[in-house]
């Protein structure tokens, strides 16, 4: 076991982690731990753009952006945070440009902008061009640009280090972050990283669904590490299903395709979004479009022999426009479906895409231990966190924005905290939990297989807690997850070695997914209303009287070692916008 000491430790090297690292490295001795290599992070898969009211191509302002974000999130957004997001968006984009990001350009050389779902002129009048983009590779360019700047700043990376535990020490009755425990993939060695400040930027948890745009590695490791140490998870029932995943595979086809003029059609060729969203049509918010697609499918207007998908039609757009603005997604259609998007529509279905919920933080990125108390020295940013700027449904292009705005904020805040505070004593035997977990899995001889349990988990999640939910389906999921958690205790791995043991790590990741799936399902069961990405057929309306509040889920361990989930609620911060009915 090795012990390291850094002022600031960042867990994850996607957009949020590296944006934080650029700030933290300038101000404190910083280490970035990533279970991949930085450029492998899933920020690179984001396509369509990053929202900011630059007004480069038409009138726009940050207040309209704030409103769209609040409305898009079905009023569960904390409005003070949304205002920060929209205001700081402008500098966040300009900062990236100055760091070298190759945005597409307007004829006069400024950053070009395009339309995106839910982003509107003057509070919903019409779509507005707010998304700053680099073809359909904006996430790739952000990830590369941030990594380039990390190289420039000399950021210290620990690649292929899996953070498996968050260390917390109670000092005078206050829980403080003391560091993290990491597993080195190459050697199987356990490392303790003592740090004055820790930032989680480890991304989402989409791999508990089967049809998902998420990478294999998005297994909620950061959320699980904090949750197991008694910290709450906020709004976990809110998960975004992106309308346009490649049929059956779930690979993302950007909303920018519709921003460029693409149209969704059912088997009769009808532009069905006109029925559901007369003003914004195909550019309504993602939850609305995904529900509309499944409504078409359920009512027998789906495409194909099984009637189980709809079409994204780009055939009316000039091939030059597709080549210039959507080169990657058209190539995905050719590679994975054998379809030529110039001439044929692309079969799509909604795909599990983004966790709106996560580790609760305030606007400085400080992690909350309950509704108000901060955990000193602990920060989170990006998809792992819940500020909450996305509320019940995130707008497209607001996630690349979120990672930049709150990545930067948390990087600065953590480094400033580290400068003013000393190391917290490590808890006794800090490595114990991880060592036991790893040794138990390595020695286990049980008959359950990781892949089989994960398949069953993904199938129950897709069937029961996806776009449409009812009390009955959610209960089915809760029961199935409980069964899988019990069987997980009997899981074994075949690779017993120390070197690059990804078999072992997949088992640990499955444990994380099971814990988080349970939190999601239990949170969803208790929310007896429909709001944003959480749609209950048995409660089809939003209920502001009873549910205009954030869910806070805590893990409780009984005296006999039994685990339960305790739900609590946190008020939503409302400033200038009163909840209204949501229409597009």
């Amino acid at each position, binding site marked *: 076991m090795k012990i390291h000491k850094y002022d600031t430790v960042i867990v994850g090297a996607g957009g949020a982690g590296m944006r934080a690292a650029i700030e933290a490295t300038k101000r404190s001795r910083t280490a970035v731990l990533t279970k991949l290599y930085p450029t492998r992070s899933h920020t*690179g898969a984001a396509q369509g753009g990053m929202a900011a009211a630059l007004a480069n191509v038409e009138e726009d302002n940050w207040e309209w952006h704030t409103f769209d974000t609040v409305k898009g999130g079905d009023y569960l957004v904390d409005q003070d945070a949304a205002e920060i997001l929209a205001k700081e968006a402008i500098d966040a*984009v300009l900062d990236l440009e100055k760091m070298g990001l190759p945005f597409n350009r307007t004829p006069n050389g*400024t950053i070009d902008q395009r339309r995106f779902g839910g982003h509107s002129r003057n509070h919903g009048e019409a779509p507005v061009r707010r998304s700053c983009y680099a073809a359909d590779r904006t996430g790739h360019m952000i990830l590369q640009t941030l990594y380039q700047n990390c190289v420039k700043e000399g950021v210290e990376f620990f690649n292929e280090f899996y953070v498996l535990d968050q260390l917390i020490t109670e000092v005078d009755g206050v829980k403080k972050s003391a560091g993290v425990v990491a597993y080195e993939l190459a050697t199987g060695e356990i490392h303790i990283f003592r740090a004055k400040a820790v930032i989680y930027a480890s991304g989402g948890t989409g791999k508990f669904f089967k*049809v998902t745009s998420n990478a*294999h590695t998005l297994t909620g490791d950061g959320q699980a590490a904090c949750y197991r140490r008694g910290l709450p998870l906020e709004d976990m029932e809110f998960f975004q299903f992106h309308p346009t995943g490649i049929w059956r595979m779930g690979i993302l086809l950007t909303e920018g395709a519709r921003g460029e003029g693409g149209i969704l059609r059912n088997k009769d060729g009808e532009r069905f979004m006109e029925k559901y969203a007369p003003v914004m049509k195909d550019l309504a918010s993602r939850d609305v479009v995904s529900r509309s697609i499944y409504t078409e499918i359920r009512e027998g207007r789906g495409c194909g022999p099984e009637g189980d998908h709809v079409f994204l039609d780009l055939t009316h757009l000039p091939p030059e426009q597709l080549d210039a603005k959507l080169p990657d997604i058209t190539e995905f259609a050719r590679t994975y479906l054998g379809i030529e998007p110039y001439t044929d529509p692309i079969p799509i279905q909604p795909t599990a895409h983004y966790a709106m919920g996560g580790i609760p933080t305030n606007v400085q990125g400080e992690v909350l231990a309950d509704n108000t108390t901060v955990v000193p020295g602990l920060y989170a940013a990006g998809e792992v966190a819940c500020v909450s700027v996305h509320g019940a449904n995130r707008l497209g292009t607001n996630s690349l924005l979120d990672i930049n705005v709150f990545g930067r904020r948390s990087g600065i805040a953590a480094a400033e905290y580290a400068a003013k505070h000393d190391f917290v004593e490590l808890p006794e035997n800090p490595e114990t939990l991880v060592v036991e977990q790893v040794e138990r899995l390595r020695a286990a001889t049980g008959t359950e297989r990781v892949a089989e349990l994960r398949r069953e988990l993904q199938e129950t999640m897709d069937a029961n807690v996806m776009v449409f*939910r009812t009390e009955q389906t959610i209960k089915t999921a809760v029961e199935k997850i409980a069964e899988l958690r019990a069987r997980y205790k009997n899981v074994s791995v075949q690779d017993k070695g120390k070197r690059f043991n990804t078999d072992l790590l997949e088992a640990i990741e499955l444990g994380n997914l099971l814990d988080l799936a349970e939190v999601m399902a239990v949170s969803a069961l208790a929310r007896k209303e429909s709001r944003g990405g959480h749609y209950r057929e048995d409660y089809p309306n939003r209920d502001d009287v009873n549910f205009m509040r954030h869910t806070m889920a805590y893990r409780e361990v009984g005296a006999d070692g039994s685990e339960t989930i305790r739900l609590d609620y946190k008020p939503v911060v409302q400033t200038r916008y009163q909840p209204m009915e949501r229409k597009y």
Partner: protein
Amino acid sequence: MATPVMEKTAAKDSAPSPYITVTFRIRRFNPEVSDEAQWQDFQIEIDPKERVLDGLHKIKWDVDGSLTFRRSCAHGICGSDAMRINGKNRLACKTLIKDINPEKPITVEAIKGLTVLKDLVVDMDPFFQAYRDVMPFLVTTGNEPTRERLQSAEDRERFDDTTKCILCAACTSSCPVFWNDGQYFGPAAIVNAHRFIFDSRDEAGEQRLEILNDKDGVWRCRTTFNCTDACPRGIEVTKAIQEVKRALITRRF
């Protein structure tokens, strides 16, 4: 009723099964077990429209959990799973079974020129070190503008091709010069230097050219075009290297 699940088997009773039997012949190496690498065959059932990565997962998940490879996004964006498939460098997640003649055994081995650590996993550090050595970041002088730096669409287009690089190492590890001498910067590092040398906003082109004028720099390139063939992003790698060579001669870029 819950969300309709898409996983109904496409095959109706009358329709033939899409699955075929394919042999994966994988170069295995695990120094914890043996100092020798060896080929191992696995037979699996797979839909030819699936990816080589899906085949590797079937083996790892259902047959032999110790099979080790890197992967993440599974659709050709993250650059984790470059490997040698039937003797050519490709991304496992971007190669469909039907496109590589599944009637014969599909050979899968680690990319060449970098030390194999276990099975298909190689030591990427020398690769990333070469990348870092070419100053892969925008360098500017003078006062920062308040708004964005202006760049014409034409100037932006000039280096578009090389911005697509995902650092998967398929190009560098397909290069015979790199195989013979790991000191060579390799195509990927030159591609990333090109991306900045030809960016109208950048002011460190001369410095990068001097770095690449080194004995281990661009002049080692023998224009075999392996790199261009290998690039899963369709970057014209050899062309980019030629443009850097030309810039070194003319000092115009």
